[in-house]
């Protein structure tokens, strides 16, 4: 056979120049692919970093708020002791605030000057006096937030070198500000109002309290519906259901539901809950119901996974000693699956917490200046508050939006952290 001879006639030169070059090319291709992979991962992490860093840089100013301290004389001529709520607090605050500068204010300057103080100051003083009417006739020291442009100035976010017409504070305001700063009247404490105030049109007063309470109520409703229903459905499908067309249909349905775009759930909530059943618009009740329908598939899927992880030997042992199938599930399988179910529940709720689109459609993006008192009252939620603030033109809302996002992400991290902790502490290996 001629072909047997060929190795002798044409000996393959494994270590020749051509092969060496070829080998180098192949290894270079290998390193290239590896490099692409590293570059891809690097890009992803870089993008995440840019996202987080830009949010933190933008959001950090909102965690402090410039305040100004001055003395007001609660003039008995302007506030009556019988009805302290209706006094002329605007005038009182103005007079006190004017005391901070030595210069006599002309009539024209008055407006500019008083725009430096937050418009909420008069209401804050009113609440203080209503709470404690003995202050009438006394001179008290108060600390009230600056208006947003002065807050930006104090935080160094406004460049003094820009022409006066292009910045939001005038030269005069800067001069007054410098005088106040020199006298030590300006402070920058932690912005507790961000957590304890409800929404406001004025950035220096706006806070997240309403959104936090609204999110809490909505999540509670979501949990109360989706947890029992999800666990019951999962237990049935995993432990009891026969394999037939009906249960197949349910399974396919659940998988499809998990992939339905969230905005479609909003449409469902709008058409069914609001228009058909006439439930109150903007309420955490409807928000929670819509979120629970979205969370339900997640809940069922994670519960089934947790039930599957319980080894069959547990079931067989319980059946072996004469337990009924219900007893097997209730007394043995479910308790063992609880850690997994809880972990999944927390993750599902964390997803629901970040969900925005369906809440927009049922009106949870309304401008509401007080925290809701119950699940049927109009409310906003954290993500919709972010959406509202992101739309607001005032400079101060940019930092507040970032700060609200940081709070939202903080909650998500805590929830996921708890889930991871539970998984590590409670999950058992068989």
């Amino acid at each position, binding site marked *: 056979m001629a072909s047997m001879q060929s190795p002798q006639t044409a000996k393959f030169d494994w270590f020749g120049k051509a092969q060496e070059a070829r080998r180098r090319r192949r290894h270079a291709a290998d390193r290239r692919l590896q490099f692409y992979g590293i570059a891809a991962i690097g890009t992803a992490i870089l993008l995440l970093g*840019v996202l987080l860093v830009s949010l933190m840089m933008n959001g950090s100013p909102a965690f402090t708020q410039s305040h100004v301290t001055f003395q007001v004389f609660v003039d008995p001529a302007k506030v009556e002791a019988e009805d302290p709520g209706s006094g002329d607090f605007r005038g009182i605050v103005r007079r006190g605030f004017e005391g901070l500068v030595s210069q006599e204010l002309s009539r024209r300057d008055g407006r500019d000057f008083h725009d430096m103080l937050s418009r909420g100051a008069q209401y804050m003083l009113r609440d203080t006096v209503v709470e404690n009417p003995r202050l009438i006739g006394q001179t008290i020291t108060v600390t009230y937030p600056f208006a947003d442009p002065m807050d930006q100035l104090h935080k160094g976010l406004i460049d003094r070198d820009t022409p006066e017409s292009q910045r939001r504070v005038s030269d005069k305001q800067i001069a007054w500000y410098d005088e106040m700063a020199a006298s030590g009247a300006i402070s920058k404490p932690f912005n507790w109002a961000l957590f304890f105030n409800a929404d406001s049109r004025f950035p220096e007063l706006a806070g997240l309290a309403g959104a936090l309470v609204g999110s809490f109520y909505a999540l509670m409703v979501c949990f109360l519906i989706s947890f029992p229903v999800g666990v019951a459905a999962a237990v049935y499908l995993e432990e009891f259901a026969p394999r037939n067309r009906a249960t197949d249909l349910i399974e396919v349905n659940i998988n499809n539901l998990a992939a*339905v775009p969230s*905005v479609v759930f909003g*449409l469902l909530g709008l058409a069914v809950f609001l228009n058909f059943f006439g439930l109150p618009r903007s309420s955490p009740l409807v928000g929670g119901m819509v979120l629970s329908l979205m969370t339900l598939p997640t809940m069922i899927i994670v519960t089934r996974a947790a039930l599957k992880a319980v080894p069959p030997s547990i079931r067989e042992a319980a059946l072996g000693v004469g337990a009924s199938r219900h007893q097997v599930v209730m007394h043995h399988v479910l308790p063992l699956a609880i850690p997994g179910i809880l972990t999944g529940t927390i993750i599902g709720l964390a997803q629901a917490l970040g969900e925005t689109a369906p809440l927009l459609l049922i009106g949870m993006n309304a401008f509401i200046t007080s925290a809701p008192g119950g699940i049927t009252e109009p409310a906003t939620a954290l993500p919709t508050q972010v959406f509202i603030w992101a739309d607001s033109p005032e400079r101060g809302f940019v930092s507040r939006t970032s700060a609200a996002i940081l709070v939202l992400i903080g909650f998500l991290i805590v929830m996921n952290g708890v889930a991871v902790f539970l998984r590590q502490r409670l999950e058992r290996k068989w």
Partner: protein
Amino acid sequence: MLSTTFILLIAISLASFILGRYRIVRLAAQANAAAHSLPSYHGSFVALWIGVPCLLFVLVWAALEPVILDAALLASLPPEQLQGLLQGEENLLLAEIRSVSRGLVFGEPDPFVVEAAARLNAWKAVASWSMLAASLGLAAAILFVSYRRIALHFRARQAVERILSGLMVTCSVLAILVTLGIVSSLLFEAFRFFERVPVSEFLFGLNWEPQIPIRADQVAGSGAFGAIPVFMGTLLIAAIAMLVATPIGLFAAIYLAEYANSRVRAIVKPIMEILAGIPTVVYGFFAVLVVAPALREAGNSLGLDVAPNSALAAGSVMGIMILPFISSLSDDALAAVPRSLREGSYAMGATKAETIRNVLLPAALPGIVGGVLLAVSRAIGETMIVVMAAGLIATLTVNPADSVTTVTVQIVTLLIGDTEFDNPKTLAAFALGLLLFVITLFLNVLALKIVQKYREKYD
């Protein structure tokens, strides 16, 4: 009143558990024999029989009460006030009466409104007391019947288990009901839309201007409803997102699956998952705050005119959002390729890159394609990023620097604010929603079919 009723019913339910348990224990002691079921089953039997129907009854009552009250209220209003009112105006009137009855008075309501509000409040009081009475009566009746069924030979355990099974089946069926609710509400409202705007105009029209009523003789008299530009915009943004996410996700998955050691995997995978866990409203803000201005500046320095809310900004940020999705699904697909194929390839002297290119990728391709399809469906259905970062005007363009709008943006903008349900503008949102639902459903089913088919190959 509703929460009081709930709490009362739950308390009665718990009390009847104790009652039922006590009765069987006493019966057993009297007869000096063992009952068929454990005492707690007898208790649970009574408690479940009372709790479930009564709570359902209250829920149904609470759902129907406003509907019935509204109808009664309309009927009780003086007919001259209702004359010539459209459906929407009637609803407005009802809403006004309701807010007056809750004590929220804006301006000077008409005297007949104040009267109606007082009437409504009286009815509400009657209704809530009768709800309480009816549910308590129901509970008592059931207690009477079920209490008498408790006996030594009564198979309480089986009865309880039947009830529990019934409850569990109901919960499972709920998934189907939700789907039915979605489909029927979308179909119903979309049908009302198509009564006013022909389907052919919606599907093939090239002009989308839902906000502007132009002239009276135009179709539906208010704007144009051709969905093609909206879908083009959706596809453009989704395509940009996929162009960003697919290569990065795929290369990251290849590296993680084949090259990285376990320590790198343990660190990198959770970091990638953080990207998936960030709420989309955050991505939207990021796009508006950082990406869009940066792209605009870059475009300006190159002499290009980039719109402030360009498709590129929305699409690339959406790409970041779906990146972890693609990488984890591709990772799964690569990991599912059996070791023997890899080892066979290495044994032939192939390098890792050659193995990946010629063996692993072809084998994992169906899984990867399935993952990409799922990601496309996500990109099409994603709302917040585009609501915040994409435009509102539907333009028929493929230029990524232009501003385009998407289906989800239109749905949200059409329905935010006043929602009167008898004009084509708001109903159009449901027609868009129906199309969105059908398209994403089709993509998801297709992707799942591909993934499943591929799985069977190696198992």
